[in-house]
């Protein structure tokens, strides 16, 4: 159970947050179909850090960009989106 430092609310339990997706799987409305499908269905899951989108759903509602280690779960940075 992660402790996520919300920029507004301070450190809060993971239960308050909702994971949206990895930052590289955001499909823009004007992305071409092949680009969009690759982003959705052909994703890498590499060892190391990844950027993720979370939202403080049960808190302030802020969308967040987390940089998190896939192995250790260590959160390196949290910034509002």
């Amino acid at each position, binding site marked *: *159970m992660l402790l996520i430092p919300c920029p507004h609310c301070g450190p809060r339990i993971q239960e308050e947050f909702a994971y949206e997706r990895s930052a590289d799987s955001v*499909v823009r409305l004007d992305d071409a*179909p092949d680009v969009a499908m690759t982003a959705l269905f052909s994703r890498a899951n590499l060892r190391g850090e990844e950027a993720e989108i979370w939202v403080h759903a049960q808190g302030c509602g802020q969308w967040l960009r987390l940089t998190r280690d896939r192995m250790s779960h260590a959160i390196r940075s949290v910034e509002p989106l």
Partner: protein
Amino acid sequence: MRAGSGIDGEAMRFTFDGKAYWGVDGDTLAAALMANGVRLLARSFKYHRPRGIMAMGVEEPSALVTLGEGARAEPNVRASDVFLYPGLVATSQNAWPSLRHDVGAVNSLVSALIPAGFYYKTFFGPPSRWMIYERFIRRAAGLGRPPQGADPDRYGHRAAFCDVLVVGAGPAGLAAALRAVEAGRRVILVEQDALPGGSLLRENVTIDGVPGAKWAARAVGRIRAAGGRVLMRTTATGHWDDNFVTAVERRVEPGQTSRGLAQVLWKLRCGDVILASGALERPLVFADNDVPGIMLAGAARALALRYGVAPGRRAVIATSHDEAYRTAFALAGLGVEIVAILDSRVDPQGALVNAARARFPVLVDARPLRGLRRGVALAGIDAMVGTTRRRFVADCLAMSGGMSPVLHLHRQAGGALDYDAARGAFLPGAARQRQTTVGAAAGEHDLRAILDLSKIDDPLGPVAPAEPGPIWRGEAHGKAFVDFQNDVTTADLALAQREGYVSVEHTKRYTTLGMGTDQGKLGAMVALAQIADERGLPLPQAGLTMFRPPYTPVTLGAFAGPARGDHAAPIRRLPLAEAHDDLGALWVPAGAWMRPRAYLRPGESLGEASLREARMVRSLAGVVDVSSLAKFEIAGPDALAVVEAVCATPVARLGVGRGRYTVMLREDGMVMDDGTLWRLAEDRWLLTSSTGGAARMARHLSYVADILLARPRAAVINVSEHWAGLAFAGPRAAGLLAELTGQPVPAHMGLAQATIAGAPVRVLAASYSGERAFEVHVPAYRAAGVFAALVGAAQGVGGGVYGLDAMDHLRVEKGHVVIGAEADGRAIPADLGLGGMVRKSGGFVGWQALTRPALADCAERRQLVGVTSIDGAPIPEGAMLVVREGEEPVGHVTTSAPRVAGEGAIGLGLLVDGGARHGEALLAWSPTRKQCVSVQVGAPLFYDAEGARYRD
């Protein structure tokens, strides 16, 4: 009169398998039964072998019993992990007709025929055959039975924070907690035992001039006095990210009646975690090492010193290291004859060994070969001493194959393990979180090193660092158990290796090694040593299986906590709930909401009431509460961009004051939700969507606005709870509404502002029932007057209120889809007959996916159809659509309903290539309900195909 560090004199009566016994306060059930001479406690899982006490803690693999009776019964409780209380009722498991004469023991005779993997090899075939096998397998091999009826106990959840959490109140844990609390830190100390002291309870040591157990009790007092919190009978079961530790506190013993909470699940967020979880003793591997009377040396010592119980009259000690020698002294102190100490080492040295040699026959290079059984108890052992085989008559064998530090929490928290060849054990390596491991859990067994400030008086002297004997020696003939709970033997492990299940993970699954409720706490290292040996690898390279939480089994009720019954989930009530109650509403849960299902008249069944209500709407007028529908207002210069991104239908040309039906897609092209979109003003929109999808739609809108459109100049406000919604439908609705509002009603799919009963309302002319209908939106706090006016008007012409079932009957007849039924997350708009509505220019969420060939070519997909019961019998909802019974389904029935206009039964379904199969006859087949109804496939529209009734 018994004397021990953990008992006082108060006698207590308890029963085991119906027979009454006496124990004393502080006894575990295991200790009390041993004190009463009861050696046989259980039958083993697979072979039904007689089993007694093996260990004296939570690691006990075999002595599992059921505590309590009826709904409060708790199965699979370790007899060594329940403390006596007056009136305790314990029952043995997995034995029939009795523990002593167990018919299942015949399994032991045919055991050569049921090796590891037996079930995989023997019981293969189609699933239907498995269902028969399973019944017998489950009956033959098993643990306790789950209690019947609702759990009468109450469970709580508590959250707490601390600077330092100490797990384990043995000497190392107490010392660490004292240091931390005296340094002014907030400390929580958890201990799974009922008494503090850990190993001190089974040792004859004096600390600061008092016995170890008393020193431990005083230490707890000092910690509490300094502001620390000590939770006894509390097991840290999981160590998660960011030093989040879950712990389960037993406030009453298993099966015991409680006035307050039976258990509390603690959620602890900790600055630092100090793991003082101790070490578990390993068994020795030899044939029939499970006969009642054979136990771990530490367990025998605990019986003697903590509970004052002699585990037998004549005992043999078998060990590979020094610590078990202490058991010889402890048992001798109770008058037990020490027949021999068998030490597997060739030349053991040290003060303890020398002291033992002066009193007991110590035989070196000696090890047990086989346990000998008479009846269900140990009669002696065959041993190898040097190169000679010798037989010893004994009723107790205390064995020790070394100590394994308890590293579960350390591993769960991401810590590394280091193999220490000198100790023959894994020790905690680098930690990933702020966590340290101390004491025996870190391989440190010297009290002097652990309690650096205390004066220790240990008559037996310090134990030399465990010089490991062989963890396993491959000479057992006969059943030599490594996992006592799951009856896994050395032969099973060898078989797994021979058959190619080489990796430890494969061995585990093939043999069920370590998959019992004890998770293999006892024998894991022994098994690893054998696997490593057979593979010719050094032990650490043989690999380790995962240490998964929970450390000990947790009652499901503890996880649920207070969230059960009416508190399982929050219940949302409509603003008009009281008014519906006054009208006699029958409530039904719809997502988190309670909604009126129907309004029953005296003597009416639910089906009759729903059909009456639906026909009332078709012929007169009816009111239904649709307040729980999600409603969003989207306003601002960029509002159109938000709406266009979310809605898959054309929206830009919608006029002010007009609305239309719309669908919203997921990114994979599947329909996520549907609703209506209304243009309130040039840059202000109202979007409605389904009740159940409200939270998902709110998140989706937020994602689209904040992430995809990067902060458009538009606000998205969830106004679901601001507005109550009342649908007013039927051929008389328009006239009645005009009278109520004193103004003309809006045209179909138009909207108007009006006043009803003094309250401002918004009238949206949309039809879900197929009749001319209006959704009246009113501020929720003013809904009562408007509802009363609408219901009164309807009743004035013979109409009235209708519920969810009637609404469903009406919409099925019109072929309207429902999110979750027809739009089940696997349907694109074209599957639902909505393909023509989709915006050709794209630019909405999911448009890219719709261009995929698999979705663009719809013939192979399940498409929405209507089904009509040929003989009028009701169509089973959820039934498969098949050509012939027993064949693969070609579709399924999503919703069924009686015909409102006319008689008979109809339904909607999803059918492969359904659009091209109108007129075909199929079977709606539900084998689970043993129903089969002939249906005819047709268009998903059963009433008023031209739409004449809802248009102006």
